[in-house]
């Protein structure tokens, strides 16, 4: 397993708090992530792991604390936000491909609009990315014509087309039929070896164990464990983590 090249932190989150009305979603969460690191974020439903991920590109606004991404503070400044969103890609649980556009247009839209890339260059890049995720011949289909696993691989290609430094995955395999989970995990596994920083909220313990450099366990809005996969899966410190592992293992 490759170790992160440097220890330069690309994401630094300090004392993040977030409430949805009376619900306290994140409690004083602090974590920093090094360039090239692959982190699996696990925990029970409603523990705040997705919310945390979504605060990192401001799909959710944090109430207090600070988030600095690649040296830029994430706040109400729209210029900062635009810069950060260009560097941080996201893959969603329900794919969220643009349903009215072909696969090719899904991938070329942001590079052409945001990076002002020419159509020819953007399409060449999109084709190369589709090839990389194993969907070479699907460019002119529409999202509904693809299976869930194929759609999620397109979503990964779409995020990669912006050359992000960080890729956030919000439960990328949770909406998939079991036989399609592997094709997506294979693509993610290959990505993990390319040196891109990945934060993966997941219920795939196998993936967390094999691919991640680091595992973070969320419970009730706080980080309870932050350690290596080996330590987490063999000997977690907290009882809640032990109970969680016993629960998910039950399914295997």
């Amino acid at each position, binding site marked *: 397993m490759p170790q992160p090249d440097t220890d330069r932190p690309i994401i630094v989150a300090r004392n993040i708090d977030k409430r949805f009305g009376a619900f306290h979603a994140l409690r004083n969460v602090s974590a920093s992530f090094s360039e090239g690191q692959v982190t699996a974020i696990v925990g029970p439903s409603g523990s705040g792991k997705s919310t945390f991920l979504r605060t990192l590109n401001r799909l959710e606004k944090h109430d207090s604390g600070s988030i600095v991404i690649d040296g830029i503070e994430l706040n109400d400044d729209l210029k900062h936000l635009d810069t950060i969103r260009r560097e941080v890609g996201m893959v969603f649980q329900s794919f969220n491909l643009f349903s*009215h556009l072909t696969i090719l247009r899904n991938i070329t839209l942001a590079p052409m609009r*945001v990076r002002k890339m020419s159509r020819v260059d953007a399409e060449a890049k999109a084709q190369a990315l589709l090839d990389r995720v194993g969907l070479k011949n699907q460019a002119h289909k529409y999202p509904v014509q693809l299976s869930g696993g194929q759609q999620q691989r397109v979503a990964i290609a779409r995020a990669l087309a912006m050359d992000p430094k960080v890729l956030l995955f919000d439960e990328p395999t949770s909406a998939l039929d079991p036989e399609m989970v592997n094709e997506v995990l294979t693509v993610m596994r290959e990505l993990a070896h390319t040196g891109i920083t990945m934060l993966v909220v997941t219920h795939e313990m196998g993936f967390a164990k094999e691919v991640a450099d680091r595992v973070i366990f969320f419970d009730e809005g706080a980080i309870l464990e932050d350690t290596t996969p080996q330590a987490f899966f063999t000997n977690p410190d907290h009882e809640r983590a032990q109970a969680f592992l016993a629960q998910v293992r039950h399914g295997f």
Partner: protein
Amino acid sequence: MNWISRHPGWTMVAAMLGLLAFLWGLAIPLSAAPAPIGPAAEQFAEGARITVWLTLIAGSAGIVLGVLGGMGKLSKFLPLKWLCDFYVWLIRGTPLLLQILFVWLVVPTILPESIQLSDFACAAIALSLNIGAYNTECVRAGILAVPHGQVEAARALGLSPLQTFMDVILPQSMRVALPALANNLASLVKDSSLAYAISVVELTMVGYRIQAESYQPIPVFLTIATIYLILTTAFTTLTSALEAQLQTGQKR
């Protein structure tokens, strides 16, 4: 109907050409008809052309007003939202005939002397404002029907709010709004007849005059009704073809 959905492009072209040929050539078959229709053939054709012009102008302006109004009603900028709410409330709450008379009688007194509005222009303005208000609600419904995940995906890719609206939300909302917009357009073809009240010589006015001269209302009104039916058929064929075109990526 099946043919339309399979060849939406050709259907649109055919409907447009059919409409143009009908408007140009209408006088020729009509002039062969016995009195009172034959001698007045050119008047019928001219009336039909005015009706179609009113429909096309008010229909196009109404789409623009509808999109602006629909966006405005969903705006977070409250004065804009209130303005759009007021517009829809006012137009939907008063009769179209009153609106036409208002534009004809009141607006010229407000405008400076140098600007003269023709009767036709007054009718076009009133009809545009009227259909625009109804379109506003259709567009708003369309925008609300776009899944939030689409917006999140666009924003996460770094698209600006305006780019997100133009590239993702608007095209998808039109797919939902179009059947209702087509309904409004079909109403507009017939509502344009109210322009007779301000002495615009459109189709209904032509019929009224000719039956008054000839004392033969039955053949005259049958002719008028037939022409309206042909016009509405052309317009609805056009909009269902457009609908089929926009359904791409939606069918399974």
